[in-house]
């Protein structure tokens, strides 16, 4: 085989591999993404919702006084961005920092207007809120800079 032909073989190889990579990526980007909604987005923009069965994330605050537990251990609570509310239910153990009035991101599917959460993401400390939740509160106009934690250094 001449060098020219060999080079052609390699060009074809790399094109094939890149095409394969692009194909699996595009397919997965189409249906394996997890979309994030705030309660307001979910309620007011139904056209942005994907089909019902897909997994999504809802983020906001756990409404004060909304947490209750059934006899079988299923927990019910309400996710709010202080403009709109979405009821949610969850079975299982909670992350260390799930509390009323705190930020929460729940992942699951929405059935009849209720989020059936399969996991609760709240791996953060008390000062810190997931960025998505802060953005959600800002968007609903309810964000207040209450006690910003000391993070950045003033001049020495």
């Amino acid at each position: 085989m001449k060098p020219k032909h060999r080079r052609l073989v390699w060009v074809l190889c790399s094109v094939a591999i890149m095409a394969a990579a692009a194909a699996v990526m595009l397919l997965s980007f189409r249906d394996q993404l997890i979309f994030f909604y705030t309660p307001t987005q979910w309620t007011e923009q139904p056209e942005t919702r994907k089909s019902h069965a897909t997994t999504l994330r809802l983020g906001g605050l756990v409404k004060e006084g909304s947490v209750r537990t059934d006899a079988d251990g299923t927990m019910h609570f309400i996710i709010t961005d202080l403009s709109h509310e979405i009821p949610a239910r969850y079975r299982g153990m909670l992350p260390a920092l799930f509390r009323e009035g705190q930020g929460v991101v729940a992942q699951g599917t929405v059935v009849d207007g209720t989020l059936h959460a399969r996991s609760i993401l709240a791996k953060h400390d008390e000062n810190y809120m997931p960025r998505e939740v802060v953005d959600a509160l800002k968007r609903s106009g309810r964000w207040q800079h209450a006690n910003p934690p000391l993070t950045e250094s003033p001049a020495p």
Partner: protein
Amino acid sequence: MIAELGQLCLCTAFMLACLQASTLLLHRLWRPHALLAWARPMAVCYAMLLTGAFAALLVSYAQSDFSVMNVLLNSHRDKPLLYKIVGTWGNHEGSMLLWAWIIGAYGFALAFLRTSERALTHRALAVMGGLNAGLLAFILLTSNPFLRVWPMPAEGEDLNPLLQDIGLAFHPPTLYVGYVGFAVVFCFAIAGLMERRIDRNWARTVHPYIMLPWSALTLGIGAGSWWAYRELGWGGWWFWDPVENVSLLPWLTGTALLHANMVLARRGQLAGWVVLLAILTFSMALIGTFIVRSGLITSVHAFASDPARGVFILGYIALTTGGALALYAFRPLAQQPSSPPALASRTGLILLGNMLLVASAATVLLAILYPVFSQLLGAPEVSVGAPYFNRTFLPMSAPLLVLAALAPLLPWDRFSVAQLRARLRLLAPSLGAAALVTLAVADAQWALMLVGAAFSAWLFWGTAAALQRAMRARASQHGWAWRRQLAGIVAHAALALFAAGIAATSLLKETYEAPLIAGQDLQLGAFTLQLVKATRTTEANYEVRRATFRLREGNRTLTELTPELRYYPVRRMQTTEAALHSTPWRDLYLAIGDAPGSPEGDAPRLGVRLYVTPGQQWLWIAFILAAISGAVVTLAAFAQRLTERHT
């Protein structure tokens, strides 16, 4: 006083680094012969100054000097001394200083471990001076660890409790030795491009500086996974978290680089590709830094975000990567490009594997950046999670296992169809073994299990065959060459073990969750948990709830496990400490946590989570084996250099 000394060291080192870089320019203008050699003593001084600066920060932490802002924000008097010391790099500023110190240490090594390529090494050191100058400017302008606070507060804000784990002592330093080491390779690539000489000697000079960081990065990623496994309390070891993915990028391109460089050192082929990979790998390490430090993404690792830092690092990336690529494009290598390798050769299979590795890295990189772009374009917020990676990364990387088994069995230059067929026949029994494994654990997901077991068995069989051939040819090889060859085989065996571990942990894992009821044993599948005692005590800087359980499987008592829940009052944060019972075949992992309150609205009760994970230990062993084999190749390269000098 000590902080000011550290600051002084940093400023001096910055000026020195500028000088070190300028030797390159002056040499270009006037070509005085001895000038480039000055980079060597300068690199030594730089290493000493950085050691001084790093020591100053260490001492500030050890003494809990809260007049230093960085110590104030990340330490506390009651913290155990170990975590005071390793906490030095448990924050953005300190970890950047560690980074700068490690690159200084590499410079020191380069200056002392002389090679036959003296001019090349000096030039690489000068390029390194340029990298260091940018890095120190970044530290001094945006992330100075030595800023003071006045008046001095009485108590610090403590280190994030999740970081108060022995993992902090290993994970960041090893990871940075990896990241930073690829900077050395980058410097050599630039120096080689300047001299228009990327050849077999270049490859031999650089090889240990590819193997050492590769080995360290492997260990660092492994240590991070091990830490996440123990500390986060969810029984998983890899979460496809953006920051984990970011550390995977340079590992993938670095793995491609080390194989391509083997080809270059042995056959003198692929010179241009090796240089491109060297540039790419360092850029991946920088992009990782950018993503972690700019607050672009939310992650467990996210440091306090500051847009100024992001902009600075972005500029740094543009300058280094952009400059390197420009040099690569406009300064073609002098030698006539050698003819490309035949596809049907070991070199060809290595190049094919390289392409797959780079393509896998691309699927990961785009997934990291996709949410960012999507947000910039005003689309709804998205996150890319495990399902995406299972669908893209696994199919892209699985063929690598096939190549990893085949390539070492085939000759370097060309192989015939008959030879290939013979090797395939040799490997065929492995597929039978995979079928047996699958039947043995017959499970709902048996099809996936079959695929995983097949790939793993295939590679095990291949490495066994390679070992057999190496043993047969042993007589013709002297000490270090033999060890190096053995290390390659062990690394591939580690990959096979790793694949088996992934298949087992992800497909055969059992999860049980239940609330704890006083006076009652818990029945979890085949396991029975009996609460032996529960205590509540106060340690130096946290309160702890411990529960001791007796774990029985059927009628057999396996062990007693004591998981903990810790509450750190300074940060008002709770962490879980899982209890583990590890055997070679499976891990039993027990964690306690808050279960939802009872219907009467009582306070939250305790619940337990039990994970039974087959093959978990295989993963850790695979990480360690791979790291050891990388270290052996590094040592082999240095040892061979020494013997060459003596003879």
